[in-house]
């Protein structure tokens, strides 16, 4: 186990290093942030002064190594736009994104999996057909479009839910959370629902096919012969059997929801990281983009690690080596 964790850590460090070089060079190659950061009526002298103050007058490799030295000391650089530590700015936005992603994942799990089980227990039945059609919609309709439709229907036409923003928040251990207030919940429901549709559809389909497959396997037949009801077989044996792919998918999509909830966040003006990163890319705010990508990588690695540990808990045959 210790060796496993150590190897994972080493891989992670290497990945972050490679990614930092790629992002650094990539953002540098796109363009010159100066033209976007300084108003056009600045004189050439001012442009030069600002370039110097941001350290952009040095060659790229010098900039990279100074970034690397600082990064090793936990400083990911100062945002060109906000002139504050990039990490601080991102951390301010992280709770909103985590909250949105967790709520969406929660919705996807509590709706998608039970629906999949019911559909899988009676293939061809009403629930099954509803799931197949519904999941096609969930998979193929773009989230931004669903988001705008939800806003139009619930906020503009019916006027029962707010169209955007985060609403009232409560500070819990210094972290602002909105799902603890009624106003916050009302703001959360539309973006979380529209973001949950894709993982919900995938989880539903996956559960359905898993259940259908497992129900025809030997262990399910023996369990039936022992006199278990179908419901007992599903809850006791089948769910356990199909949980591995479900955990994997939940893990992957959770990471994706956190790192790339960009579209939903901008449609609903949700003050999360996704919105921040898009604006930072548009402004060529390199420290922000680099810090964000580093954080995403760490996040993905952490989720993958959790998934692996969950595997070993769910399936005794899996040993972490």
């Amino acid at each position, binding site marked *: 186990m210790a060796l496993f964790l150590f190897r994972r850590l080493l891989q992670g460090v290497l990945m972050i290093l490679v990614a930092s070089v790629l992002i650094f060079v990539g953002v540098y190659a*796109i*363009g*010159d*942030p100066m*033209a*976007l*950061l*300084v*108003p*056009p*009526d*600045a*004189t*050439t*002298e*001012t*442009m030069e*002064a*600002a370039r110097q*103050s*941001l350290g952009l007058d040095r060659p790229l490799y010098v900039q990279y190594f100074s970034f690397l030295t600082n990064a090793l000391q936990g400083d990911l650089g*100062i945002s060109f*736009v*906000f*002139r*504050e530590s990039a990490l601080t*700015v991102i951390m*301010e*936005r992280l709770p909103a994104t985590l909250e949105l992603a967790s709520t969406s994942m929660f919705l996807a799990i509590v709706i998608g999996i039970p629906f999949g089980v019911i559909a899988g227990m009676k293939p061809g039945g009403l629930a099954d057909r509803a799931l197949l059609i519904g999941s096609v919609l969930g998979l193929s309709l773009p989230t931004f479009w669903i988001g*705008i439709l939800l*806003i*139009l229907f619930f*906020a*503009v036409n*019916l*006027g*029962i839910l*707010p*169209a*955007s*923003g*985060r609403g*009232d928040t409560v500070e819990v251990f210094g972290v602002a959370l909105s799902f603890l207030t*009624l*106003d916050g919940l*009302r703001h959360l429901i539309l973006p979380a629902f529209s973001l949950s549709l894709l993982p919900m559809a995938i989880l539903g389909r996956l559960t359905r096919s898993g259940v259908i497959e497992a129900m025809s396997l030997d262990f399910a037949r023996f369990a039936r012969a022992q006199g278990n009801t179908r419901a007992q077989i599903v809850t006791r044996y089948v769910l356990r059997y199909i949980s591995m792919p479900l955990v994997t998918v939940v893990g992957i999509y959770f990471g994706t929801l956190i790192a790339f909830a960009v579209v939903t966040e*901008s*449609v*609903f*003006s949700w*003050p999360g990281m996704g*919105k*921040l990163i898009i*604006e930072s*890319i*548009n*402004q*060529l705010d390199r420290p922000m983009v680099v810090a964000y990508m580093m954080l995403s990588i760490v996040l993905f690695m952490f989720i993958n690690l959790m998934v692996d540990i969950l595997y070993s808990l769910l399936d005794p045959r899996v040993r972490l080596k």
Partner: protein
Amino acid sequence: MNLRFLATATALSLSALTNTASADTATIGISIAPSTLDPQLSLLTSDVGIYRHIYGSLVKVDSNNQVVLDLATSYKPLDNHTWEFKLREGVKFHDGSDFDAKDVVFTLERLGTVPGHDGLAAQYVAPITDIEVVDPYTILLKTEKVTPDVPKRLAQISIISNELSKDVASADFNSGVAAIGTGPFTYVEWKRGDQLVLDRNDGYWGDPSDFERVVLRTMTNPATRVAALEAGDIDMVDNIPPLDAQRLMEREDITVALGNSGRVHFIQFDTTSDVPPLTTAKDGSPLTTNPFADLRVRQALSMAISRDLIVERIMDGFAQAVSQGVPEGFSGYAPDIPMPVYDTDGAKALLTEAGYPEGFSVTLGCPNDRYVNDAALCQAIGQMWSRIGMDVTVDATPKSVYFKKLLAGDYPAHFLAWGNTSGDSISFLKSIAGTPDKENGRGSYNRSYTNPDLDNLIDKAASIVDEAERVALLREAMTDAINDQVFMPLHINNVIAATRKGLTYTPQVDENTNAMNLRKE
């Protein structure tokens, strides 16, 4: 019982439970996110627009970008190198301390020393070499070079309190500890990228706001902003796309506010290269001369464009054609310059005269995420040019790539807009029409046109303190620039905002949103 009734009932019961907004709070959906609240860190036009809520300045600009008094009660040049400012007495900062000359001195001294500043604030006051405090309410500003636009420069500088410690950090302004000004609103809370909450400053010396509290909520997505207004979540939104504006105008419960923008859109040409890049004869063979160096070609390309059609079709009527680099009402606007005429036959004749009867091939550079409908505008211009025989490729790229290419001189012709935030034509003439020259601050966006006579005029205008003489010179320079087609003026947009019924808003020509302009009817 129908669905509508059910929905209304649910809506009523839900809103009764949760409605926290009161009539005295105005929530405004704004399209930009302020980058900082330290008024000396960044002088981006959009940031200055936010500072104006919290901080006062010696003079400020009105909704038409013209200088009016704020913390100064009068100003005048005593000679070519000295400006006298009389300060307003009895003004208090948000923390209760008095405003006087010491605060001005503190403000000007901190400028340019803030870690990470963009250099712009320091640039604005760089000509001021010395400050003399005559008495607590009179100061003399000395300049080494003759600087006629001292008041305009100071309009960009927010006055902070000298009660702050010398090493006050930008983070203190962002957290509100140091965000203390003399402006019409006081800081309550700022969540970066989300919202800025401000309360009315009841001790404000001027006309107070009609609202006890103002919330500036950042909503970068235009569809979201408009939907939030339609849903009644917020009281006002700025920066509405022309397409939505038309629809909103038909609604009973929403008022659309229109104003003119000071941002002039235009096209520049590469007139100095021997052969401009991406320009060939129609059959693809290289040219031996630079067609844009010929005035007749530039005139022909301008005549080929129907500005009315652009306004009507691309901008949905929410724009106006312009004849020069600044809109009417700005100082230096030359009323005698005629509106460009649309005449394809005349344009063809001019092209033939210049030796290009068949036209030639050219690439028009254009951003696609910077100005309203920018890519569509360039496509339309390309099509209009092809009507007089040109072969046009439109290269529309994101702004992050575009400006780099533009400044590197990669385009033979390109589309640009100039904000004219100074309220006069000097910055346009200097940056667009002037030959690049560090000393005189000319030509920051002009790589490819030189005219020493015009440069002389511009430099002269930049160093005359007498307002009437200065305006006359600015007009002459603009007229010369248009006569020589240094650039090809196109149009200005409307600034479009919308409020719920019962409120009025006066848009600002600098496209910023100012909560002070929002009033109850």
